[in-house]
């Protein structure tokens, strides 16, 4: 039995089996299964209340699951104390101990684990070097900026020499500029440490840029688990398609007749990458990302062409967003750079099948 478990967990850092968690009658997590490879950077992404932080807290041992098992580095840790799991955790609010200096914060966990003094010193120095904290070691958290505080919080996880890092929205309390800087710093850290990292966020940019794989969650269920670009290019269902991408994917409702999508626009489906064999009939949602819509002369070569009247133009400098309607539904077009197109202008647009997605209108799954 044990041997079976061992072989099943080879190369896997964190394994979650049939995990369930309910608060009273509310099921927060339902039969959740997830394997995370050694050294992988996995991002749990979802809107608030989707269960992503709950899952992370279960992995950390801060919440007791109602059912299922959790393995970390081959050990069943379902009922182990957080400190015995070989994890380090970084919180959104930093959660630094206010009465201790930076050094005290970094060494608190090591003192609890009765690590010898010189070893504590060595590890704290190394973490401080890695995170550029040396000049701050004797300061209290109140005398640090937000970015510095979060670096201390990361350092606190770092000194414990753990197998798995858990991040609970670590950058959400920082302003946009700092967030971008720390994001890169985190990525570098992962490259140099090669630890397993599990990262919870609601920010899809963080997810796309940091992740080896993204798990998109909704209602306690993983909707899709795949590499970032796979999720972007081939979303598994309507929810994922609408969640990833800013602005989100455009949807056109219609049906498939033979080898054609028929709705407010007609679109031949030759060349579409079907998931499980081609459909020849049925209600369908056609999805196309705003950045894949072509306008003007470029649109002439497209398989599907139509004309729209622009309602709103949003210039954002690096790109421009055009708002219009197709068949009554809102339709967004994203253009690179700046444009002279103005509100009220009628414009030929077009798009190709190779960057489109088709979904079953009933089950909302990709077809």
């Amino acid at each position, binding site marked *: 039995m044990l041997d079976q478990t061992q072989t099943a967990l080879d190369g896997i850092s964190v394994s979650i089996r049939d995990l369930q968690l309910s608060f009273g009658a509310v099921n927060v997590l339902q039969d959740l299964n997830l394997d995370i490879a050694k050294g992988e950077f996995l991002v749990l992404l979802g809107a608030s209340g989707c269960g992503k932080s709950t899952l992370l807290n279960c992995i950390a041992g801060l919440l007791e699951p109602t059912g299922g098992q959790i393995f970390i580095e081959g050990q069943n840790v379902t009922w182990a104390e957080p*400190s015995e799991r070989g994890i380090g955790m970084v919180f959104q609010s930093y959660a*630094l*101990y206010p009465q201790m200096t930076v050094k005290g914060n970094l060494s608190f966990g090591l003192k609890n*684990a009765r690590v010898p003094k010189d070893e504590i010193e060595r590890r704290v120095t190394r973490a401080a070097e890695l995170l550029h904290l040396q000049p701050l070691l004797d300061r209290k958290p109140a005398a640090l900026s937000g970015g510095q505080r979060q670096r201390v919080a990361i350092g606190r996880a770092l000194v414990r020499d753990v197998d798995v890092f858990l991040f609970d929205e670590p950058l959400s309390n920082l302003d946009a500029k700092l967030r971008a800087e720390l994001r890169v710093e985190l990525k570098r850290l992962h490259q140099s440490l090669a630890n397993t990292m599990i990262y919870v966020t609601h920010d899809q940019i963080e997810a796309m840029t940091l992740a080896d794989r993204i798990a998109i969650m909704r209602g306690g269920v993983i909707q899709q688990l795949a590499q970032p670009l796979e999720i972007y290019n081939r979303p598994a269902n309507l929810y994922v398609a609408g969640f990833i991408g800013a602005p989100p994917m455009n949807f056109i409702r219609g049906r498939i007749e033979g080898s054609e999508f028929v709705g407010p626009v007609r679109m031949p489906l030759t060349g579409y990458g079907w998931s499980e064999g081609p459909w020849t009939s049925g209600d369908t949602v056609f999805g196309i990302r705003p950045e894949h819509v072509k306008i003007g002369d470029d649109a002439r070569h497209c398989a599907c062409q139509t004309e729209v009247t622009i309602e709103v133009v949003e210039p954002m400098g690096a790109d421009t967003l055009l708002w219009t309607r197709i068949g009554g539904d809102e339709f967004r077009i994203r253009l690179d750079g700046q444009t002279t197109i103005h509100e009220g202008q009628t414009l030929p647009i077009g798009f190709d099948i190779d960057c489109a997605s088709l979904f079953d209108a009933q089950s909302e799954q990709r077809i």
Partner: protein
Amino acid sequence: MVDLSQTYTAPRRLAGAEGAKPKRRLSGNRIMIYGILCLISLYYILPLWVMVMTSLKGMPEVRVGNIFAPPVEVTFQPWIKAWAEACTGLNCDGLSRGFWNSVKITVPSVILSIIVASVNGYALVNWKFKGSEIFFGILLFGAFIPYQVMIYPIVIILRELGLMGDVWGLVLVHTIFGMPILTLLFRNYFASLPEELFKAARVDGAGFWGIFFRVLVPMSLPIFTVAMILQVTGIWNDFLFGVIYTKPEAYPMTVQLNNIVNSVQGVKEYNVNMAATLITGLVPLSIYLLSGKLFVRGIAAGAVKG
């Protein structure tokens, strides 16, 4: 090098308001507010004034009856008598005996009740167990039962424990009666601390006591101060439990004061009575004055989250 002053001239200031906001003279509103405040202050200060003045007069001057007048001849004799010589029953060593009794009762009661209540509050917030909310509800219910109902049952309990008439019996009673309100106070304060701090400490391997003593207590000085003030003043001012659960030689200061002031034999020594009352009130008063800022901070912190 280009001379910038020639290419750019700052615009002249425009007409209108500028600089620091001018101070307004006393308006009708202000006069009303200050007037009312003065009246109310007077209302509270006058009795104190009468007490202090009377306590500094000799008996002949007191008998004249001009209670608001300052003493013609200042004497501290009434203070000395109240502290060291006034008689209650057979003892003629004044309030001093009661003072030390009160200290012996208050210090352990305050320390014990704060230790118990702070751990209670911590466990109720951070280590919720099945039925912890019910447990807390029952504890709170205790705060609403009138003391008088429990006097007799407690007499029996103390008798059975062999603590009746003992100072430690009274300490036990004070500790238990302080628990509901103090637990509520600590629970609310600990609930207002970020939960992630507690989680971080758990990940860092700190246990129940480690988190309590090394993470939470060091950041909870204000609420410990508030609890201390509440308990010191409450227990110091207690009369009822003191008179019921202790023996005459262990009476706290309040009981002693009552016995001095309410003695029916001989001349009423108003000056001594006033001095004795002032001495008894000095302890709670000095506690408030010494911890003023922390007291307000703690009350505000405890009141925000419920």
